[in-house]
């Protein structure tokens, strides 16, 4: 063989397999790729501010949220109250800050729930047992017609208005949606030649699902889950307005909207602020999904592919490989030529 690597130095035992960029290395490349686009930058900034404000609001708000002043209600923005005060004289900015933590928790939990539920359903839908898969497909189609609001109203009967109602109603509804949207992609992967090869090699169904199917539906997953996060913010506002969402004592953006929306004709500013926050966050979440899809998918992001290749090369070149790199460079040219000869015209004469 013209390109034998017989004298390759050996990788240390149990060495990480080259081409496995660590989680943090991968995240750095993904975030950098997202940052390069204006939409990605906007979404990252808004989400970072959201998370930061949620954390800060646990310890500090400009005015303690339970401080009310009966003589200063419906005030316009001022130095003391940057966004003004609401009908009880409470500071609107402080309530919005405190509410961001509630909404963050709701979105996060709804995304987790819908992601887990959706993937479990997809796992059943691509099952080889046609009895299982067909039953689940029909079940999802039937349940998906149940409106989220109706589900929340039903749940509120035993639970009363609570975060759990919003999370479960959203997570359930979006999980079903997710399963329906992801299924064709997952089926495509499940019937692909690479899955057939893996199965022939004796790789188990669960491992195939986790290592082949899930990575190949991640683009759809990114978009759907971030949209679910955005929709859950809107749903929280709607359900709280209906009285089955976040309970009265708990700050949330829906709560801020609900308490002031009745007076929108008189004091439009008090509705404008929470409305603005909700809109900005929902837009950011939708943009985040698109940006994440483009950045996290190695097929779509050449920078990620390049980073993986570089990490692999440096793993190969590290330690024991160091002194041999010059020699490897030599053989690189050698192999290049061999590949070229193999694919190009030289050998054609043989046949």
């Amino acid at each position: 063989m013209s390109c034998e690597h017989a004298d390759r130095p050996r990788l240390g035992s149990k060495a990480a397999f080259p081409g496995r960029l660590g989680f943090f290395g991968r995240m750095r490349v993904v975030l950098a790729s997202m940052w390069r686009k204006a939409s990605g930058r906007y979404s990252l900034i808004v989400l970072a501010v959201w998370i930061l404000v949620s954390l800060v609001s646990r310890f500090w708000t400009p005015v303690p949220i339970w401080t009310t002043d009966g003589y200063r209600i419906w005030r316009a923005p001022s130095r003391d109250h940057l966004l003004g005060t609401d009908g009880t004289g409470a500071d609107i900015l402080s309530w919005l800050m405190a509410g961001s933590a509630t909404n963050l928790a709701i979105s996060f939990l709804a995304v987790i729930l819908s992601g887990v539920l959706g993937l479990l359903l997809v796992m059943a839908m691509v099952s080889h047992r046609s009895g299982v898969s067909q039953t689940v497909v029909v079940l999802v189609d039937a349940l998906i017609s149940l409106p989220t609001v109706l589900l929340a109203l039903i749940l509120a009967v035993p639970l009363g208005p609570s975060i759990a109602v919003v999370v479960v109603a959203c997570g359930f509804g979006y999980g079903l949606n997710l399963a329906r949207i992801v299924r064709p992609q997952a089926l495509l992967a499940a019937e692909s030649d690479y899955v057939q090869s893996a199965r022939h090699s004796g790789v188990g169904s669960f491992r195939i699902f986790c290592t082949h199917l899930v990575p190949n539906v991640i683009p759809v997953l990114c978009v759907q889950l971030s949209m679910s996060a955005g929709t859950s913010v809107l749903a929280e506002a709607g359900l709280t307005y209906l009285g089955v969402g976040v309970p009265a004592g708990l700050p949330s953006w829906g709560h801020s909207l609900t308490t002031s929306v009745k007076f929108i004709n008189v004091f439009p500013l008090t509705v404008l602020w929470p409305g603005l926050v909700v809109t900005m966050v929902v837009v950011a979440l939708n943009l985040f999904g698109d940006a994440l899809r483009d950045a996290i998918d190695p097929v779509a992001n050449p920078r990620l592919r390049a980073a993986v290749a570089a990490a692999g090369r440096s793993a190969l070149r590290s330690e024991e490989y160091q002194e041999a790199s010059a020699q490897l460079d030599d053989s690189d040219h050698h192999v290049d030529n061999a590949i070229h000869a193999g694919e190009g015209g030289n050998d054609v004469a043989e046949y």
Partner: protein
Amino acid sequence: MRLTDDAPADPILTGKGLTKVYASTGSGMARKAAVDGIDVSLLPGECLAIIGESGSGKTTLSRLLLGQLRPDAGQVAYEGRPVLHGSQAAKALARDSALVFQNPFASLDPRWTIGRSVAEPLLAARRRGSGHLWHRRQDGTGLADQVAKVLSAVQLDPDRLMTAYPSDLSGGQAQRAAIARALIVKPRILLADEPMSAVDVSARVGILHTLQSIMAQSRQQADPSNGMSMIIISHDLGVVQHIADRVMVLVRGKVVEEGPVNAILNHPKQSYTRQLLAAATL
């Protein structure tokens, strides 16, 4: 021709009266067998070519032979043991055989690096060997070395391609990576289903070359009767004449001609085979 008369080896894989009828072929038409009562045998170290036009049942036959499809009639035997669904022989056959598909980009996970794809069967074999179903940290001992070795054997540069993704490869390179993936577990039977049809003409020669060198290497082993056998499927007789020992011509699910490659090439008995020869591209 390496199949010497002095050592008539037992076939490694045999099929007797293999028949497969798909459930839903055509509307209202009488159901026709995709594979209709075919007898095959594959000797150790032999390269058998299955030739026939599209839809003649080549893929179906090969899947039956590797135990991936259940025959409606007939039986496959691996090393003399009948291959029944879930039997030990079926497991052994799956373990000892590997597949190369027509479209290399469909047979490599687009979101896996080449190195990871190539290593997958080896890791699966190791897991099987160790009896653990799920290793969080898989034993990577010498993995990169083995992947590099097998990539070199198919004339790919391991340092550059191990961490590349399929989308960075040409069709010819991707197909060779797929061959490397099949070879890494040192299969006793390699099934290549139209491995050259989906890549451009200039890359076909390279792939043929690779397959030839693999066969040549396995034949140079100490015990040639233990060498790798290959089933190569093609609709093009010209492609396989350089590599096959024996050729089997399929027409509509039936074998119309079978024999050593030279005999078939020089004295085709069937007019159909003559047409195939005339249409040869390489």
